[in-house]
């Protein structure tokens, strides 16, 4: 199957800062691909190069079967990380304008927008200025602008920012619908939970480089045993082989450093007089754990 998007060996520097270095990945038709990494990792720069907003210093991008051109722009929906809407204009005319720039005629745009606005609870606010809408409403408006022209390739950068749980679920549902309709989605986020819920494959970017790339299930299998859940009392900080400890439903959830096994952690805990263990089990590594293992583990190795 030919990839919808193919990014190979992209690099980009701003002055002396290497924002993206040698990033490669492929995205296939009908999948939701997760581009994840900590803030400032180079996700947005990669997306901007992919969409021809920036020119890369090196590397190639092929999307929808070749280089970016003006006709392809009508087949792409892009939701930028920061809300890209005119603040002092009214909601509906702005959305109609943006839709017509994607090749829709005004009548079609208006008809489709009515449905979208109603579905996302924005219909009653359609004549309000965008600056008068809440952050969550603006984000939903941006989602509409991204999807109204029914693009084949949808690129969404931090789509859940500013949304409450109800709207987060609504947008998740919309993303799944788009996938079911055969669209290709690339989602950039630093929220691992959403990626686990939605994405089939991911590329994890850290400091401008791809540090992890592949199927979510497979990655999770590879990192099985890289997390433990402990119930008990006492001080669970500063345990050798543990990169991060956090509380999950009253348990201590620990992400392990690369090379550290659950046995090592168990021994270390047993040896500590200030800790009382009630339960110890090997947990399924979440993407969060894997993220911490890869990103922090690398930092620890460099230290």
């Amino acid at each position, binding site marked *: 199957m030919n990839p919808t998007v193919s990014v190979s060996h992209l690099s980009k520097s*701003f002055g002396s800062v290497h924002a993206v270095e040698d990033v490669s990945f492929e995205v296939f038709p009908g999948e939701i691909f997760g581009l994840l990494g900590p803030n400032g990792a180079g996700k947005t720069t990669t997306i901007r190069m992919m969409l021809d907003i920036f020119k890369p210093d090196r590397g190639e991008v092929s999307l929808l079967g070749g280089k970016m051109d*003006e006709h392809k722009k009508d087949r792409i929906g892009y939701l930028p990380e920061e809300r890209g809407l005119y603040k002092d204009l009214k909601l509906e005319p702005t959305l109609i304008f943006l839709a017509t720039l*994607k090749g829709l005629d005004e009548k079609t745009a208006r008809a489709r927008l009515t449905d979208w606005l109603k579905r996302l609870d924005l219909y009653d606010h359609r004549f309000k200025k965008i600056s008068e809408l809440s952050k969550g409403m603006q984000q939903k408006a941006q989602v509409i602008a991204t999807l109204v022209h029914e693009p084949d390739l949808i690129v969404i950068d931090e789509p859940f920012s500013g949304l409450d749980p109800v709207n987060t679920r609504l947008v998740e549902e919309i993303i799944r619908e788009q996938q079911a309709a055969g669209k290709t989605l690339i989602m950039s986020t630093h929220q691992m939970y959403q990626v686990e819920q939605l994405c089939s494959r991911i590329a994890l970017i850290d400091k401008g480089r791809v540090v992890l790339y592949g199927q979510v299930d497979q990655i999770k299998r590879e990192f099985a045993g890289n997390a433990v859940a402990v119930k008990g009392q006492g001080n669970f900080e500063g345990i050798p082989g543990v990169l991060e400890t956090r509380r999950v439903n009253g348990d201590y959830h620990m992400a392990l450093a690369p090379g550290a096994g659950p046995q090592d952690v168990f021994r270390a805990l047993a040896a500590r007089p200030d800790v009382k263990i009630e339960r110890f089990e090997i947990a399924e590594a979440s993407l969060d754990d894997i993220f911490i293992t890869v990103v922090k583990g690398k930092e620890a190795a460099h230290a």
Partner: protein
Amino acid sequence: MRKLLRIARHEYIKVAGKRSFIISTIGFPLFFIAVMAFSIFMAVGSEDSRPLGVVDEAGVLAANVAPTERANGDKLVEVRRFADEAAAQAALRQGDIQAYYLLPAGYLSGDTVRLYYWDKTPATVTQRDFDYYLRANLVASLSAEVRERALAGPVVTARSADGQQEISGDGFLNFLLPFGIGFFFLIAVMSGGGYLLQAVTDEKENRTVEVMTTSVSPNQLIFGKALGLIAVALTQLLILLIVIVVGLAVGARFVDALQELRMPWPLLLIIVAFFLPSYTLIAGMMIAVGAAVTELRQGQQIVGALNMLFTLPYFFVIVFFTAPNSPLATLLTLFPTTAFITITMRWGMSTIPAWQIIASWLILVLSSVGMIWAAARVFRAGMLLYGQRLNFKAMLRAIGARAG
């Protein structure tokens, strides 16, 4: 092309739909009309229609010469003759007359005419009516032909050697209009240019530009924006011109002086022809500056300097008065940023050679199209350097680089 026009329409509605725009565009001419109407009302309303008196101690008034109207049909105020000053004073006290003139015995040998009034001087038009009355009396003994010429007074028409242009004594509109239009042009430059600068930097700051560039090409975006704003400026110009033409036509019904004005159509044509590319040039400059800077404040400083390029002719206004065809005037005529104001100012003062007008227009059109094109290139380069200011060298490099 369709997307370009959509952007143009969007920009047009965005600006022309603003309350501040509507107020300034409609409000300014309305204010102009209101001031004009008020002054006409004051002039007409305050005019005293009571007769004037005259005491002829010099014996210069001819018998039975009492004109009631001018050659063009304008009514004259009635002038009553009094045998002596005491009778005239009594009539003034009674309020029968508004004032009286005394022609002293030594009038013909140099004594001046004296005017007596109660508390208000007669209106200028009323005084002019008396001048006419007196002249009509003084020339009464001459032949009809000479009498008419003498009463009409001199009207000088200066015509250029090649016959292209003429300046007549009453052509003050030729002289005044360029200044008015030049002033309007500067206001349009500052407000429109300032708006474009803000639009471009805003879009960069709120990232709308990312959505735009993934929908349209930089050229469509920049040309569309420029076109929309030019349409806005043209609307303003049109409204202003309509107000001037209609205002003068209506005003002429009430104010005699305006009747003699003729519309300087060739000048209006020049104004429209030069206004468009001049405005495009500014639009291009503003977009380039907006694209190169990261925040509005930086841009405003640069724009302040750029505006100087357009106001330059006002510093040389003395040159246009004293030597309207000097090399400096020619240079300012040909230079694209100064062409518009220089040409409109020189128009009222001398004849501009046709080759200069044509050359200036061609240079202006070429540089304005070039500027918009360059602006699109700078815009693209500015995008690449998100968050960093584009220095002048990089700007030039972007303009010189091959498309892509």
